[in-house]
């Protein structure tokens, strides 16, 4: 999996390989077959064949962006609910521009391997508006793709379109309805179609002429089967406009060159004067519409004709929708084949698969997991393997777990086909490649990193190598049975929630699992207690980061604040050492805010509250904000756009606070603290505001004194 954030965090470490050869390989280059809509059909058939044969399939996606705002990036302070919300937001807003599929097969005799990077683009193929008709691009991600020679023209000009399953159903529904409604005009209820008054002289003339023409044509049909001759002759002046042929075994007139107004007049004529003629409009496969007048013998025949026409239309619609489904056929294929899917840190990729090809992302992680599990029952994350398998850990020492570093470390032998003699372990996975002359010759970036196809290939190679190191022998397993191996079994369907998180999700059960064997993830922060966290935002920009802790400790005591974490320049998390401080802080802030006298200026919090837009609330509010579909760059702007008006959100103390710790948003108990605040039972808030003010004034004097001192000193 490739994305700018990750690669920045884990810089690839090349050149630190151990001297011993673990395996050897005959390996030259990988062929990457670029798939666009021009060669999709043929490539898909090829891919279908390869996937059927494959032992596992590696996936990688390139997206138009990762985070829609800086504060939506993945932080170590994030609750797992937040992590899912962030992933959901990313998958909903950004587009997948490239989808790399690389089927791997273990084979002793013929070794074949092709990576398929599919360029995909959500083109509008059907006359229906889906909400996906707009997507977001993150400037840095686009630049990142550009740096790796991503071909945007190929993507937008030639990208394969797709419909999710939900969209397909919707499209069939809508188009189906549309056909019945208005396509065969004459089907409409005559009462509905309003009589068109013939106002202009031209209309009257035209109507009359049509009446004569049509009755002539019908009469000629009735008189003698060989009608063409008569008609053509009679209407030499409008030969271009009528053509007699047969439609569904019935004689018919093909109308061409008429304006829509004239067509409507013709319909009206038919409705009024000809019981045995039917007007039909058909859209064929190329979405060209044909207008016909068909002669029907009697009324039942006409109904039969209409039925036939409708069936035809449905068929056409169906094939159109089927064509529009496009790339999703690949996903359906992967799903129906039930192969093992391998990705590298792939939760975001999987979320994209869900939102683009299945349907809208559900609101909770558990629902998402169960939905995905039905689609792709076997998912293995190579990142998980790299981090948690101690054998691999020991081997890789301090090499990063990014895809490229893992690949260059584990699979270096594949790339630099070294001699076979020095190896004491048998060649494990020989990769030979089906070369595609045409595509490999005119590639601008053959086998380049951050090309989805190549990344998928690297992921697959890393997986194969890890399996080898763990002693898993592919030859004794068939297809996806390999996951039954006990060493893989325990990693199956476990995905990380973001790269810097210790939490994983089990896609099978939807359960979150805390990672126990995190060895290389630094714990920069003390243990995070979500109930101890206050989110403060909207303070002025000149407010300096280090001031926050100073100010809060001045008010609540020196040991009250555990840590301060800045979301961006307008927002910060403050973690207190005790849950009690959360309430204290919010109440105090609210009190100072309400104060209009000198206290509000002199109070240490005054600095924080400068500008009058400083807001604060418990951690729960972050969930609410993250689940908003809006995305402003600055956090403070975001909350403003969401219409948050209150300054401080204080929770009324309940008897024994319920499950605040878990952070379940028990909204009923929350009251916007504009008016109702209980000031009871606070340790140093006892008594009246006098107590508070004298204490604060002392604080202020102290702080201003120190300031003067500082100035004098300089």
């Amino acid at each position, binding site marked *: 999996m490739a994305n700018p954030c990750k690669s920045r965090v884990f810089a690839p470490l090349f050149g630190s390989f151990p001297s011993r050869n673990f395996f050897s390989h005959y390996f030259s280059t990988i062929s990457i077959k670029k798939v666009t809509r021009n060669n999709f059909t043929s490539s898909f058939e090829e891919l279908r064949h390869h996937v059927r044969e494959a032992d596992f399939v590696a996936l990688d996606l390139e997206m138009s962006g990762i985070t829609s705002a800086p504060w939506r990036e993945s932080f170590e302070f994030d609750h797992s609910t937040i992590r899912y919300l962030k992933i959901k937001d990313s998958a909903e807003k950004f587009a997948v521009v490239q989808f790399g599929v690389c089927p791997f097969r273990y084979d002793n005799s013929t070794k074949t391997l092709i990576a398929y990077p599919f360029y995909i683009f959500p083109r509008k193929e059907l006359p229906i*508006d889906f909400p*996906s008709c*707009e*997507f977001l*691009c993150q*400037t840095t991600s686009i630049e990142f793709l550009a740096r790796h020679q991503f071909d945007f*023209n190929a993507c937008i000009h030639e990208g394969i379109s797709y419909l999710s399953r939900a969209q397909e159903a919707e499209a069939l529904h809508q188009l189906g309805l549309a056909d019945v409604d208005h396509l065969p005009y004459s089907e409409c209820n005559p009462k509905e179609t309003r009589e068109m008054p013939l106002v202009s002289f031209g209309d009257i003339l035209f109507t009359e002429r049509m009446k004569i023409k049509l009755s002539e044509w019908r009469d000629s049909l009735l008189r003698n089967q060989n009608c063409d001759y008569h008609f053509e002759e009679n209407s030499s002046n409008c030969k271009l406009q009528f053509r007699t042929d047969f439609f569904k075994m019935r004689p018919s007139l093909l109308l061409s060159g008429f304006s829509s107004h004239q067509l409507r007049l013709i319909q009206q004529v038919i409705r009024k004067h000809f019981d045995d003629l039917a007007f039909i409009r058909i859209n064929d496969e190329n979405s060209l519409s044909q207008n016909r007048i068909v002669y029907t013998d009697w009324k039942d025949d006409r109904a039969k004709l209409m039925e036939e026409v409708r069936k035809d239309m449905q068929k056409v619609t169906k094939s159109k929708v089927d064509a529009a489904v496009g790339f999703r056929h690949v996903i359906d294929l992967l799903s129906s084949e039930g192969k093992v899917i391998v990705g590298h840190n792939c939760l975001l990729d999987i979320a994209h698969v869900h939102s683009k090809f299945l349907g809208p992302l559900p609101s909770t992680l558990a629902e998402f997991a169960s939905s995905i599990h039905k689609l792709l029952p076997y998912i293995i994350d190579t990142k998980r393997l790299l981090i948690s398998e101690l054998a691999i850990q020991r081997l890789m020492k301090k090499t990063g777990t990014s895809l490229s570093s893992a690949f260059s470390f584990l699979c270096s032998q594949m790339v630099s086909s070294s001699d076979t003699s020095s190896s004491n372990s048998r060649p494990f996975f020989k990769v030979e490649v089906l070369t595609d002359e045409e595509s490999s010759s005119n590639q601008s970036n053959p086998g380049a990193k951050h090309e989805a196809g190549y990344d998928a290939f690297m992921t697959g190679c890393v997986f194969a190598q890890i399996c080898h190191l763990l002693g898993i022998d592919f030859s004794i397993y068939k297809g996806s049975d390999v996951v039954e191996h006990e060493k893989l079994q325990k990693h199956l369907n476990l995905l990380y929630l973001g790269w810097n998180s210790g939490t994983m999700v089990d896609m099978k059960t939807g359960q979150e699992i805390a990672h126990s064997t995190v060895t290389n993830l630094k714990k920069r922060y003390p243990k995070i207690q979500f109930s101890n966290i206050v989110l403060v935002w909207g303070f002025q920009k000149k407010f300096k980061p280090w001031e926050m802790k100073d100010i809060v400790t001045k008010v609540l005591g020196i040991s009250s604040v555990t840590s301060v974490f800045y979301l961006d*320049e307008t927002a910060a998390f403050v973690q207190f050492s005790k849950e009690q401080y959360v309430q204290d802080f919010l109440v105090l802030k609210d009190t100072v805010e309400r104060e209009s006298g000198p206290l509000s200026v002199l109070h240490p919090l005054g600095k924080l509250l400068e500008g009058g837009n400083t807001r604060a609330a418990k951690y729960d509010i972050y969930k609410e904000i993250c689940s908003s579909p809006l995305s402003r760059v600055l956090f403070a702007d975001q909350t403003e756009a969401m*219409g948050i008006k209150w300054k401080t959100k204080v929770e009324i103390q309940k008897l024994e606070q319920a499950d605040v710790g878990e952070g379940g948003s028990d909204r009923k108990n929350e009251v916007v603290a504009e008016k109702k605040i209980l000031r009871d039972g606070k340790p140093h808030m006892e008594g009246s505001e006098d107590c508070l003010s004298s204490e604060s004034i002392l604080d202020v004097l102290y702080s201003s004194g120190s300031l003067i001192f500082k100035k004098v000193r*300089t």
Partner: protein
Amino acid sequence: MTHKWQRCFFSSSSKQWRIKQITKSNFSRILPQVKERIHGADFICVSSQKTGTFSAPWRRILPIDTPETAYCKSRDAAERFELLHFTVCPITFQGTKVIAYPYNFHLFPRDELNIGMPSYSFSCQTSYLTSMAQEGFDFNTCIYNGISYLSRVQESASKHQNGNCIPTTIPLTSSKPSFADAIFLEGTKSRVKHWRDACKDSSGSSDGALMKSLRKHILGSEVYGTRPCINIDVCTDNQVPLVAKMLNDVADDLVPLIIPHKNGTAKGIRVVLASSQEDRNLLMEEIQTLEEEQNKHFRGFREVIDAMSASCKPIVAYNCLTESAFIHSKFLAHLPSTMAEFMCSLRLVFPCILDVNHLMKSVRPLRKANNLHSALSYIKRQFFAPVEMETPYEVSEDIDVTHGHDVLRIAYVFAKLCSILKIFPSTGQLPIGYRSMMDFENAFYPCCVSIQEPLDAEPTIQIDKNKSKQVSTEDLIFLWGYENGISPDRLRKLLCDVHDAFHGGFQVRIIDDGCAVVGFEKSGSAERFLKDVESGEVESGALLDLIVGGLRVAGYNAYERVCKLGVWEGKLPNSLERALLGEPVASTAKTGMSEEHKSESMMLELSDL
């Protein structure tokens, strides 16, 4: 690649017009030439290619929009989408001949300075990109080689972030220094004096290396370029001018430079010692050029916009409101919340803007032309307007014929319209029978509110006398939740008898999937109907059935609220529902404007729908 419209366009114009293509690589080379052309031009035509225009059909500017709602829609689009091409075409009139120099700039909001600007992310409208692709748009060139830019506001913000030294302009304050400041100043003064003396002194003497480094260490002296300098920390911003003044008093060979902090405030002052008065001037010049270099780097493409602004030439554009909202948002500043503020802000930069749409609406037969192409072909058929346009470029590698043609169409239509409307195409003495272009300037279709007069003076939606009746915004209601896919005629029939408000005559227009606008001809009917539906005092069974079936109604104020608050949902009914949910209108301090707006009724024309 062959493009349909191009072929027919060329065949009609019979000549191949050439357009200079400008990317990152040739930008600085061609910029002086562009500036020169801009200054020599009579008019400057502009057009742009964006990543999208509107996110949902109802978010286009519709005839039901008042200037205010139209502005809200344009603002949303300008903030959401990004510019990929910006074409500037200075034109000059020579009798019936028009000389045009089109320059097509490829843009991409690349974060050149690594400061998260000009744009963190932007939206793309898929259908729009697809149609651009069909016309042969080259996305790779834009993204790989597009010129970046910063808006004026971003530039001033980023200067601080970048941590570069900017020479202080020494704003001398009259405010007396406080006690603390006085102490601080005294201390600093003696320190600077001491340092200066030491520098002057040591320049002559020949100390050992150890002595030199020791002295340097004790004095805190550093080197700025080849000159010695010293850094002074300041506590507050207001100490900066005080220090500057103090330095001025000490000696005239000291140049103070601000060391900015990351958040824009001053961290300290760097005092550079010049060896003489001449050296001081030299230093100032050096800094000046350094700053200019840096500014150029910061502004990027905005240089062109600034040149256009500085030239004060009339700007000609099509769909002016959207176009100028884009220009304002990308190159000037964030878009203000009201139309009036926007127009004021815009006029400061571009005093004269001519909207081709507005000119077209002044020619009666062209009223119905809804794009440039149809307007052009209509003019060709119906009018005698002998205008010839040429692009006198030599063939070179910068020249292309595929990208940025819109601007030439605008220029061509504009020239033809000038001829038809007898607009005198330059300033100076107006010949008899000609009209001044002042008559048309700064009026944006569809909200032909001239920015010269205050917005609230009069509702000035252009009125066509022989067409359908005008409807006041007060007499408009929005209907949704009726049977889906119903035709306007059937809806009309359905509504006819449900309430006596409909007896006075009304018009129905479908404006979005499942949402219709009803314009009552009799004033007061809308209010009556809304009130009755709201209170549930419904007599007719038919209406009751409709309401039970899910029919919802809202007045025009709900729509205004939707636009004002930016409740942009995919479908208008969803937006209206959310607006009706009673999210109170944002407590804007600037609502004095919108209050007046409510009382006044805008006249709209539904027939254009």
